[in-house]
């Protein structure tokens, strides 16, 4: 882990756009990744299956186009974006709202195994030093760092009062391009993003290449993960379902469907949840 002062020549110049650039900036991982073109993909912690899929697909598109994915490594959308970038073979930068040491010792659950993967191909960065207790405002403050690092910021899902809306505000102030992913009406996790679009604060993101064009990557290889042709996998695109729900969506049933699901299970394309539902792997 190293600390960079703003005067250092390898300090990411994009951060100098901030009123108060992080001083010093703590970095764990590769330093040069911070100089590359980046898109921030952020959103609520309380994501839906839809948000998880979109965040993942956008991050994979970035990875395919060689664009770095920046996010805040919170639960939910942020983690889905980091994981998507890693799974797509890309680079990703996690901007933490607490010190790197604190985070590494306290992180649990599904984010923990991602830490070494991020450090190996990208970086964990933070503007906070070790003894600091993470507070609400430290997370709000790092949102500006996320916005500054990226050329475009995509808010995938944000409910009312979501921290991702603070990132959106910072993005506007810094003059970066702001996208919001339109969501279903009535979905609590899309109230904030739909409002950003409706108020004209953000451009509606309809396809990944919109966001890639802003950072100057127009590589055609950046097509999103192709939609699965298997009806069962297609039914599970937006989150886990139980057997009867899959049957309903696929308009299929009986022994044929069950054999199909069992085969996908043993092949590892589906994973069981503890509550009897299945999710795509």
């Amino acid at each position: 882990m190293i600390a960079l002062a703003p005067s250092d020549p390898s300090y990411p110049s994009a951060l100098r756009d901030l009123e108060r650039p992080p001083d010093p900036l703590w970095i764990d991982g590769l330093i040069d990744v911070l100089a590359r073109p980046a898109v921030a993909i952020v959103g609520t912690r309380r994501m839906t299956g839809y948000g998880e899929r979109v965040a993942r697909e956008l991050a994979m598109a970035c990875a395919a186009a060689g664009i770095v994915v920046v996010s805040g490594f919170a639960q939910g959308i942020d983690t889905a974006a980091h994981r998507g970038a890693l799974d797509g073979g890309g680079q990703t930068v996690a901007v933490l709202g607490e010190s790197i040491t604190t985070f590494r010792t306290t992180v649990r659950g599904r984010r923990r195994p991602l830490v070494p993967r991020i450090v190996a191909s990208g970086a964990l960065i933070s503007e906070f030093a070790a003894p600091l207790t993470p507070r609400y405002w430290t997370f709000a403050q790092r949102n500006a760092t996320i916005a500054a690092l990226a050329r475009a910021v995509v808010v995938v899902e944000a409910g009312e009062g979501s921290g991702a809306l603070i990132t959106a505000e910072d993005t506007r102030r810094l003059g970066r391009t702001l996208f919001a992913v339109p969501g279903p009406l009535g979905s609590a996790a899309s109230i904030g993003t739909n409002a950003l679009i409706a108020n004209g604060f953000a451009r509606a993101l309809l396809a990944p290449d919109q966001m890639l064009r802003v950072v100057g990557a127009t590589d055609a290889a950046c097509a999103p993960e192709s939609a699965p042709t298997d009806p069962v996998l297609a039914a599970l695109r937006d989150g886990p379902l139980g057997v009867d729900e899959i049957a309903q969506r696929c308009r299929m049933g009986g022994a044929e469907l069950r054999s199909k699901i069992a085969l996908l299970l043993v092949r590892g394309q589906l994973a069981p949840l503890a509550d009897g539902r299945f999710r795509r792997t």
Partner: protein
Amino acid sequence: MAVDAPVRTSVARVASCALWGLEAAPVIVEVDVANGLPHFNVVGLPDTAISEARERVRAAIRNSGFEFPLRRVVANLAPAERKKEGSGFDLAIALGVLRATDQLTVDVTPLCLGELALDGGVRGVRGVMPRVRGALARGVDEVLCAQENAAEAAAAGARAVGVRTLREAVAHLAGEAVRAPAAIPPPAPPPRAAVDLADISGHETPKRALEIAAAGGHSLLLAGPPGTGKTLLARALPGIMPPLDADEAVVASAIHSVAGLVDPARPLLEARPFRAPHHTASHLALVGGGSPPRPGEVSLAHAGALFLDELPEFARHVLDTLREPLEEGSITLSRAAAAATYPARVTLVAAMNPCPCGHAGDPAAPCTCLPDAIERYHARLSGPLMDRIDLRVHVPRLAYEDLRDEGRETSRAVRERVLAARERMRARLGGTRRRTNAELTVAEVRTHCRIDDAGDALAREAMRSRRLSARGVHRALRVARTIADLAASDRIRGEDLALALLLRGAA
């Protein structure tokens, strides 16, 4: 004097019975009345309740119009080396005192069980059924007990005479007012289950899983948002399980008797027990314990179903204590004073929400849980207990259009299939004490779970992709065997194994 010449002594002997778990051991109450300062002592490792019997016996004898001897009275509970508990020896001690002082002129031959009231009344005690069964096994077929226990003793197969007071007991024994043995209570028709499957709309897969659980004794987890019918489904289980057979009824009733949960009028259980302990239950409540060890919920549910609603809310160490009974079908409780083994062969049915707020995957209400919180919630269950749950089904919220009325099967129709499947299992397991596919040994799985080509291909694929351990394959094969039995098929078809893998989550 020759050693074997009859010696006139003042020692009276009365048969009674002690209980450790379900194991009944004969106890002879010996009472000696000798000259000396007035004194009454009970020896032979009595617990507090038995030591206090002295006061009850003295008062009951006096208040029944008899005389308590103003001499040195010693009651010994033989064999003296094992700890005895409870108030059930009162009647035997009192009759022994009366016999030893010749206030009762005939020997007491029946097994005597009962607690005395100070006014000479005889009260019922717990555990009459296993004690009477133990006595019958040793050739004692006559029982003298409290009126309220008489039906229970009769149901266990003994000639049982119920008495209300100590006087009645003495009059009966002396032949002055002989009482007729209690009638064996008539078996009642099995009660209607609280919930009929026909009352539940939709939920085809959960119902199928319920049927498989009822037939094969496999454990089942129902998960879904609140209010979607998980509890209703679980409560429908007793209605599709086969009726208790005679052996099961006696053992299950004996466990209830030890716990003091027998209905005096209907001592023999007629329906399979369905126990639903609250999630605040301690491990002692769940698997039993105490000193002397009492049966817990898992034993009270023996031969029936144990329903754990809100499974992740149970304390983890409490759930972990269920591992042994689920695997062995019995639980041994060892305490410093005594060890007891209680049967605990249950069909486990558990219910849970998919996340702490209950709405993950629920289209009607958004889930407000953070992803890590959901993960922690599921992690409370992971590990050995989940490994023993063979059927996991999601119970989704149904749209109004899905709540159709046509084509719903009644519990009776499902039960017919379950009975037929159990018949096939019995033919297969004939000669063993095991009844269901869930209890098949590994060797039996090899011989009995033959699969067709499609199933073989699926099993091969599962093993090759390393998604399934050998143990997982065996557990899935047991479930597949039950599914094939329900379809009256000798061979496990590919679709049977597919459904088994699906319901098991192939983990």
